[in-house]
C-alpha cells in the first residue's frame, strides 16, 4: 500500500522513510524538499504554501500509485506540507523502497517531478526586504486540452 498525505504540521523525513522498507527490499531512496534562503539571488525569509487540499490529496495519492506501478514496488510514501514555512523547514518528503536501487531512485524522482507538474499547490516567497511574491508556476500537465 502506498501512503500519501497533505498536512499543515511539520514533516519528519525519518518518519516518512520508516513507512517504507520490507524484508525483500535492498534499497530505499528518500527525497526531501526544503525552503532555501535565496531565490535567483534574492534573500528569502520564508515561504507560504497554499493548496487546494482535497484535490492535492487525491492527486498525490494518484502520483504515488503511478510511481509504485513504475517501480514494481508498493512501498511509496509521500507527504507535502501547507502553510507558513521558515527557511530550512521541510516542504515535501518522498520515500520509496524496492529490491533494487535503480527503481527506488527512479520512483522517488518521478514523484517529485509530477508534484511540480500537477499538484494544486502555490507558493508565495517572503523576502528579507519585506516584499512577497507568488512564484511563477507551471501550467499543470493535466492530460486535457487547453480550456480557453
Amino acid at each position, binding site marked *: 500500500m502506498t501512503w500519501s498525505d497533505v498536512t499543515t504540521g511539520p514533516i519528519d523525513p525519518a518518519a516518512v522513510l520508516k513507512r517504507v522498507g520490507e524484508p525483500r527490499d535492498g534499497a530505499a531512496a528518500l527525497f526531501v524538499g526544503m525552503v532555501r534562503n535565496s531565490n535567483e539571488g534574492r534573500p528569502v525569509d520564508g515561504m507560504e504554501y497554499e493548496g487546494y487540499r482535497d484535490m492535492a490529496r487525491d492527486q498525490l495519492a494518484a502520483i504515488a500509485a503511478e510511481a509504485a506501478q513504475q517501480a514494481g514496488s508498493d512501498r511509496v510514501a509521500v507527504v507535502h506540507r501547507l502553510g507558513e514555512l521558515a527557511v530550512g523547514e521541510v516542504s515535501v518528503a518522498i520515500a520509496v523502497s524496492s529490491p533494487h536501487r535503480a527503481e527506488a531512485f527512479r520512483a522517488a524522482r518521478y514523484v517529485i517531478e509530477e508534484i*511540480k507538474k500537477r499538484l494544486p499547490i*502555490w507558493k508565495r516567497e517572503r523576502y528579507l526586504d519585506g516584499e512577497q511574491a507568488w512564484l511563477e508556476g507551471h501550467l499543470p500537465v493535466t492530460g486535457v486540452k487547453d480550456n480557453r
Partner: protein
Amino acid sequence: MKVTVLLFAAHRELVGQANTVAALPEGATVETLLSELKSRGGGWARLPARAAVAVNHKYAGGDTMLADGDEVALIPPVAGG
C-alpha cells in the same frame, strides 16, 4: 443548476474572493462557466486566459459538462515541491 467555484493564490487575490456560486443553464460546460465568470467584470474579467480547471478534484477540459452541485476550481500555474 448551481456550481461552487473555488479560487486560489493569485486568482483569489485578483478577484478578492476565495469562492463563489454560479447559476448556470442546464447543459452548461466549463466554458459556459468561464464566460459567466468573465462577464462579472472587475477582477473576474482580468483572470489570466491560461489557467487549468478542475471539476470535483479532477483536471477537466473546457467541453466538460457540469452538473448541479459540482465543485469547480480555477487552477493557476502550480508550484508545489
